């Protein structure tokens, strides 16, 4: 069997799930089992793609050639392998968790929910394996539109308002900034393909590089760089599984993934270093990182705090790209994985607290640790990973980011990373601390659903596993910028 088969398999599985789900609306058990099964198949093929990539085989597949310069095509890149693994692997966990959440919370319109959930995963996988900017843009937009029914799932006024902010910022930035940026690249180079060391070198005069990069950086609204970050907190009106998988993993990671792809495969790390075109981005992402951490401190709503924490963590990844050395980009790529696993743990925990107790304010969580020990332990472990404490996976990515900034002598960046880590400690660890050490205030009915608690705990364990089995990840990320 041809190895390209794995590309079809990983892309088609969520698409098939999307088409079958509405047909099974009368049989909820069968319908809901599509998620985990699809997740396993997709993850399996992504693993195979990864191992083929490590063996030096570049898989590619052209779905449709529109004309000589435009095509919808897929090509496996190092970054794509990582994002594909993250999206498909966490889909397994999230789909199990989602079943528990939707049933435990007795949500309406579950079939519609699962349908759009699959199409969002489909879009994310397609983004991961996209072979040129056009394909990337197409699925970037599909991801935005397919998540709208999920964000506005409750269909009340709050959801309507949040949905407007969500669509307005994401679609607005992508049309006004990202699309012209892509067209400029098209006009300058005559093609939209990715190349291991970038395509722009020699096609653009140096003084325009920062401006073109700015069009990309602000056009990719999903990376939530300030001032285009408001959509992420707004999206928190969605049911928690959406926040967990999509707004901690698929959607935002699609954003930072696209940033890294643009930086490495369109501009090229060396070209950016030569022209210093990305220096401004270091400061913008640093400022985003600090300000959003500070805002997170002030939020009492658990999901809002996690949302601002996500914004700040995304800026770590953008920062890694902006430093533009091999090690920093490697760190950024590893951080895609580590933050995804850590943040999904936290969101899972937040959701399971909500389903069990209907609490969403941090100040109400005093003393809840004894009633829900597994959940809060998972939350604690996840927080440590986000903060970057060994033996959790998150420590690796921070280590690489710092190495990268030392290499380029950005000492201020190291201080910023340190300050942000301190802020992380404060606003994340406050929650398990309150839950375990404060006295319980009121008597709250706790109803647990097993399908919620175990995925949460499993995700927490995964952060530890990733600390130990970092070798394959390092290996893949080493190959990202064409060191083959």
């Amino acid at each position, binding site marked *: 069997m041809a190895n390209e088969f794995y590309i079809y398999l990983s892309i088609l599985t969520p698409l098939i799930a999307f088409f079958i789900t509405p047909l099974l609306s009368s049989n909820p058990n069968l319908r809901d089992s599509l998620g985990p099964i699809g997740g396993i198949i997709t993850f399996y093929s992504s693993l195979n793609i990864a191992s083929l990539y490590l063996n030096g085989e570049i898989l590619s597949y052209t779905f*449709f050639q*529109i*004309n000589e310069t435009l095509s*919808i095509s897929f090509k496996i890149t190092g970054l794509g392998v990582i994002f594909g693994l993250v999206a498909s692997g966490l889909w397994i966990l999230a789909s199990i968790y989602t079943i528990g959440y939707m049933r435990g919370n007795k949500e309406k319109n579950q079939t519609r929910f699962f349908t759009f959930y699959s199409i969002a995963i489909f879009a994310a996988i397609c983004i991961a394996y996209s072979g040129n900017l*056009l394909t990337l*843009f*197409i*699925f970037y*937009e*599909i991801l935005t*539109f397919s998540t709208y*029914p999920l964000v*506005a799932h409750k*269909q009340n006024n709050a959801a*309507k308002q949040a*949905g*407007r902010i969500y*669509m*307005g910022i994401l*679609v*607005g930035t992508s*049309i*006004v900034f990202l*699309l*012209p940026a892509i*067209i*400029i690249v*098209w*006009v300058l180079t005559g093609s939209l393909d990715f190349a291991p060391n970038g395509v722009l070198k020699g096609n653009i005069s140096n003084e325009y590089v920062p401006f073109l990069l700015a069009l990309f950086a602000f056009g990719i609204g999903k990376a939530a760089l300030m001032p285009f970050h408001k959509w992420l907190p707004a999206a928190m009106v969605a049911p928690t599984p959406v926040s967990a998988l999509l707004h901690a993993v698929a959607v935002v990671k699609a954003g930072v993934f696209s940033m890294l792809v643009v930086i490495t495969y369109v501009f090229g790390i060396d070209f950016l270093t030569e022209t210093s075109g990305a220096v401004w981005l270091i400061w913008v992402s640093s400022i985003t990182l600090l300000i959003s951490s500070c805002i997170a401190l002030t939020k009492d709503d658990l999901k809002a705090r996690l949302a601002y924490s996500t914004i700040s963590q995304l800026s770590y990844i953008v920062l890694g790209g902006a430093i533009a050395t091999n090690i920093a980009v490697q760190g950024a790529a590893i951080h895609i994985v580590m933050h995804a696993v850590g943040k999904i743990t936290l969101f899972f925990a937040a959701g399971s607290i909500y389903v069990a107790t209907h609490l969403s304010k941090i100040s109400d969580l005093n003393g809840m640790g004894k009633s829900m020990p597994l959940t809060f332990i998972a939350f604690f472990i996840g927080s440590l990973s986000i903060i970057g404490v060994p033996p959790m996976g998150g420590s690796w990515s921070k280590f690489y980011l710092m190495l990268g900034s030392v290499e380029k002598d950005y000492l201020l960046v190291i201080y910023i990373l340190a300050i942000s880590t301190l802020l992380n400690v404060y606003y994340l660890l406050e929650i398990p601390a309150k839950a375990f050490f404060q006295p319980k205030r009121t008597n709250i009915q706790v109803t647990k659903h097993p399908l919620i608690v175990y995925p949460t705990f499993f995700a927490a364990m995964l952060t530890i596993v990733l600390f130990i089995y970092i070798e394959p990840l390092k290996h893949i990320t080493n190959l990202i910028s064409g060191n083959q």
Partner: protein
Amino acid sequence: MTFIIKNLPILIVITPLMFSLIVAVLSNNRLAWILSTFASFLTMIFSILLCFELSNNSNISYYLGNWPPPLGIEYVIDKVSIIPIIIVSVIGFIATLYAHNFFILEIDRNLVSKTYSLWLLTIAGLMGLITTADAFNLFVFLEISSLSAVALVALGSKMDRKALIAGYNYLILGAVGATFYVIGVGLLYGVTGTLNMSDLAQKIPALGLNKSVIVAFTFMMLGIMVKAAVFPLHIWLPNAYAYAPSPVSVLLAATATKVSIYILVRISYTIFGPSYEIYTFESLRYVLLYLAILAMFAGTIMAIFEKDVKKLLAHSSVAQIGYIVLGISLATSPGIASGFIHLINHALIKAGLFMSVVAMGYYTLKRIDVNSITGLGRQVPITFFAFVICALSLAGLPLTVGFISKLYLIKAAFMSEGIWLPFLILVSSALSLIYIWKLIEGLWYNKTNSKSEKIKELPEIYIPLLIISFLNIYFGIDADLIIDNSFIASDALISGIK
């Protein structure tokens, strides 16, 4: 068969014209519909046959009554005119197929067969406008198509008396436009002694900076700009589209202004092409370009504040005409091609949007405005689905035709004007999301505490609608056909300049 092939250029005009006479005397409404559908189907088949004929020759020239030009009337089908021919015939057929339920509901029973007669007359007029290569014959068809269209608009008066005023406005402004055009033609005839377009093109350069020619050019352009609803000469359009009977809105929105834009291109590139540098350059670049930009913003902003959905779509048409004219005014090969691409794509988009909106009006027996559509998506899911696809296509979501238009328009704008023009286009296109989203959101959200039962959707309404939505997606992926033919057309036009 060879007889048909030989006479194809006239058959696409004469078929709807003859059938319109037959249909007018029928008393059976259903039979009138069937015959009209048959006529528009034949026209479509003939147009498609023309396509195949054209793939062998660069252009097909036909002398009416075998009188050779410049004395006789010449019909020319070339790589440029085939584009609007296909648009009018295909959309015309789908709209005719679609029309019957609506005409029965919206028009007095004893007027329905006459309506079909006018309807076919409009199609015949539009076809004639496209094919003729004679400047005065073009005026004749201009009158045929606009007068029948005016009558069709006024027939909306059973549903809303405002249709009469809308029709009257359309009539007066249309007459002004046509008169302007014919004044221009008269002046040109005075100085050149010919009415044949290619003959004119040969004789005008010799006249140099002749005042009569300048005035003629201005009159002709202004006259057609009224017909094409180029901002700020668009004021007849929103009301005419909004109060016309539903199928008429579909037909006019998808075809009438497109044909007028095509004539605009013909005048500026075919007639004045060889003397392009003298007459056309300034006006296209610095009048049409800025008017197009104004149209983009004015139309979009009007649409944002509009409550009535049909009128909202009409305002959006004004903006979209702005995009098309903008592409054409760039006067480069990619620019004109992008104009043609959007000409085709916008016909598909607007036909789909008007068809789905009027279908909702038909099901609910209400005028569709922004407040009354709340929660309607649940009641008519198929129509809603088609609407969403066409609306996203209007917004330019990838994998729809709207995206292809935007891609090429922005590329062309960037290549000839730098970054400021693409930026303006994109801002207006982002603004257009506001009204598109308002509609989708309104349809999707439920009314608070009201039970709404499902409405049975009729297959004869939703099948044409689904076909149009499918085309919106199909040509968004397999866009090569449209892109290629638009570039062939624009290259043909540009080569006339050199």
